[in-house]
């Protein structure tokens, strides 16, 4: 009998669902073993049928998300937190730094491209006060971060659920799949605001550009550095950072950059802190990041906590 899969999207961008469809031929191979009983991007099924595997995209942002997620959990045997939003909150985690009324106000009224005076509060599902990863609401069985995860890892993760003997997937950072070489370099200064660098063979860090490849879990096969752009960390933190409270994104990048180029570590850490909303964009809402004793995102971004 085929295993059944049900999927649901919460507050995400639907990119993760597109990635499932992006499995192409792999999807056909997979379809020999599985059957989709609910997948909003392909079929019109509003109910929550029972399924062996549940795939949930997106973070919990609204009351609807919470209700839909609980329904999914009650109907599926194995729940996969699918994509960085579901695992760590993703880009909408930035909502942690603002009141949801401010978010609504900016999106619908005061934003630079808005002229409207009304917010859609009459008929829309209300936002919750905070954005949380799905494991803050229901227990999760498998975490598959990635924004979105590369189809290679999606297929591997689903196989790993169906067959306990299937090969496990890598726990290494993006650098392990990057084709650039990390070299020592001299007379290099920190290039603020740069996402790319001249030499396509050499690591960005060696050229003074902050790349988050070494502090990000590889769930993408390193497309960005391979094609000329520094990694922005979209798959969420590397396993050492998740596991070890004393390790953090900014300090590890700074230490490596310092050893390669001699650039002062405080230059790098303060640059990252000043741009914390960018460099911490993907896992801001996860206790794995904000509970770190050295991570003070509120302070770095100038948002003040109301606790006194």
């Amino acid at each position, binding site marked *: 009998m085929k295993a059944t899969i049900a999927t649901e999207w919460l507050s995400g961008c639907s990119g993760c669902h597109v990635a499932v469809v992006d499995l192409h031929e792999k999807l056909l191979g997979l379809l020999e073993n599985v059957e989709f009983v609910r997948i909003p991007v392909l079929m019109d099924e509003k109910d929550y049928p029972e399924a062996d595997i549940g795939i949930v995209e997106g973070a919990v942002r609204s009351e609807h998300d919470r209700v839909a997620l609980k329904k999914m959990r009650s109907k599926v045997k194995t729940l996969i937190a699918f994509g960085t939003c579901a*695992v760590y909150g993703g880009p909408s985690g930035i909502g*942690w*730094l603002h009141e949801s009324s401010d978010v609504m106000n900016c999106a619908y009224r005061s934003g630079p491209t808005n002229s409207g005076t009304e917010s859609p509060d009459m008929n829309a599902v209300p936002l919750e*006060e*905070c954005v949380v990863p799905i*494991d803050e609401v229901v227990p999760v*069985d*498998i*975490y*598959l*971060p990635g924004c979105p995860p590369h189809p290679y890892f999606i297929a*591997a993760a689903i196989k*790993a*659920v169906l067959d306990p003997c299937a090969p*496990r*997937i*890598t*726990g*290494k*950072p993006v*650098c*392990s*799949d*990057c084709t*650039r*070489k*990390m*070299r*020592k370099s001299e007379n290099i200064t920190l290039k603020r605001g740069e996402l790319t660098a001249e030499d396509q063979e050499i*690591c960005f*860090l060696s050229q003074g550009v902050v790349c988050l*490849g*070494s502090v990000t*879990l590889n769930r993408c096969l390193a497309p960005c550095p391979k094609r000329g752009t520094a990694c922005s960390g979209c798959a969420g933190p590397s*396993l*050492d950072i*998740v*596991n*070890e*409270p*004393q*390790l953090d994104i900014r300090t590890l990048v700074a*230490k*490596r950059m310092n*050893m*390669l180029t001699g650039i002062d570590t405080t230059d790098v850490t303060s640059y990252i802190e000043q741009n914390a909303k960018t460099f911490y964009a993907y896992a801001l809402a996860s*206790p*794995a990041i*904000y*509970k*770190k*004793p050295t*991570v*003070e*995102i*509120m302070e770095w971004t100038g948002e003040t*906590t*109301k*606790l*006194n």
Partner: protein
Amino acid sequence: MITISIDEKACVSCSLCVDICPTKVFSFNSVKDLPEVALPKECFGCLSCSEICPSDAIQHTGAALSSCFHHDTYCTNIVSKLAVSEPASFEDIASATGLDEAMRDISVRLLSVGTVLKDVVGAGLPSVGLMAGRSLATQLPRYRPPKNLEEAFELAIKEFAPAWGLEFKQDSDNLKVCVKECFVRGLCKQENISLGGELCVLFFNYLSGYLGKMSKTQLKLVTAERSAESCSYEVKIMHR
């Protein structure tokens, strides 16, 4: 004996492992553009190389795992469920490093701190607990303070776990705080320390100070009792 292997496919040839190793275990082979394990016997398992390696390419077998003490169960749970090969579970690490023994060790020290504090500050002991709790409430990393008492309870349960298992039952201004798990209790029983001993007074006031600060109320102890499974306190909520 520690053995070291390098995943040559993952390696990005940075040679940071060569630079960082305090005992010069690695040398860099510039022909192959890869590091080599030149002096394996010199490795004493500090794992500095593994930490600095940008692509997690260095594996050690036989090196001691770092202490689990500082690990957060929320994070180790994520790591254990990433479909990654052979994840080390929190329980594995705990049993390998003697977490229970360490907890006991801390309890003993806490008990003596309690006794000394009592001798020094006497009747001021509850205030010490209260102030420590209030200070805790402002120092734990979190983005947003709880909006009301219920939210404060929810947060307290999370923030005090797993060393303490708390339960709150509120009936208008009366609150029952049930301490179901307490990592010092085993020792209290063994050493015949009564409920209301120094440590209990300190802990309860600590908790009250913390909850009060977060919910902008004041909590006043009415009664306390201990059963075989738990300790509980009746509290009056005074709104400020």
